[in-house]
């Protein structure tokens, strides 16, 4: 099925609404990063360059709680492994040529992959969906990040406005939709218990990282 003007319009509108909805929570990322000790510029650079929500939250979460750069890097990077698989799917669906791959890679995220999958009836429709969703989220996410960072730096103590409580709720909201099987639910419960049990024993950042081992062992068994 070819990319008709009607279909192009429909996909674009859908991409904009995804961008608005996802982008909006860039406000919470901006606010949390800026109140976790990152400068406004660093916060913005994370959204411009890292550009994958869960990893961004994880990186500032781990460092903000006193974890080392190394555990922040490891946690954020392990969370980003799925983007590699999305890249594979995007390459199959949209067949980017040479230099386009460099640009396509940056906007390869949950939302752009999901919309490309939804419109996978042809290379043209998948490509349009991928680009529209990727760019739309990119623009709104970055505008929202700046807004959040500016708001947070103007409110003073982040605890007054409950910004510290927002971080945990943010992670919960990221993980909850993934708890769609018995295996995932059990893994989540185990990860919570292991991380809490290790907190008094290891330096900040490591208890979270240790739970990656649970996932690695489980994935091996399911192989």
């Amino acid at each position, binding site marked *: 099925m070819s990319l008709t003007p009607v279909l192009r319009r429909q996909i674009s509108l859908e991409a904009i609404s995804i961008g608005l909805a996802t982008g909006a929570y860039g406000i919470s990322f901006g606010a949390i990063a800026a109140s976790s000790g990152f400068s406004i510029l660093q916060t913005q650079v994370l959204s411009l360059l890292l550009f994958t929500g869960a990893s961004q939250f994880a990186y500032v979460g781990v460092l903000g709680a006193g974890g080392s750069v190394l555990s922040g890097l490891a946690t954020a990077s392990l969370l980003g492994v799925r983007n590699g698989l999305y890249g*594979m799917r995007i390459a199959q669906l949209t067949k980017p040529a040479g230099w386009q791959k460099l640009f396509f890679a940056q906007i390869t995220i949950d939302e752009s992959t999901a919309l490309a999958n939804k419109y996978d009836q042809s290379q043209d429709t998948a490509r349009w969906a991928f680009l529209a969703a990727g760019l739309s989220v990119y623009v709104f996410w970055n505008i929202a990040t700046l807004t959040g960072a500016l708001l947070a730096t103007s409110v003073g103590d982040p605890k007054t406005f409950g910004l510290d409580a927002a971080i945990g709720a943010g992670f919960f909201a990221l993980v909850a939709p993934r708890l769609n099987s018995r295996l995932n639910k059990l893994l989540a419960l185990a990860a919570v218990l292991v991380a809490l049990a290790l907190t008094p024993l290891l330096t900040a950042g490591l208890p979270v990282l240790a739970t990656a081992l649970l996932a690695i062992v489980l994935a091996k068994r399911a192989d």
Partner: protein
Amino acid sequence: MSWLGVLLVALIAYSTKLAGIIIPNSILERPYVSKLAVLLPVALLSALTAIQVFGSGQSLVIDARFAGLSAGVVAYFLKAPFILIVLVAALTAALLRFFFGVN
């Protein structure tokens, strides 16, 4: 915070995305890799939730953050969007601190 860390974390994330696009599928297309890509976020995000709510340095505490999360969980099950879940949690913690002096 360290600029080196900020740039490195971005570089690694970008390399991961690019690797998927340019590396031949056969290398990545193993059940183990796709299973891992699903399970890693579940483990890490669950652990991060727990640490961000109960962690205070190397000790565990129950404070206004827990009330915030609880309110956020309720909002989630009422099908609230992400931004609202986060706002409800922040507001709950902020109000408890302001009116009841909860830590």
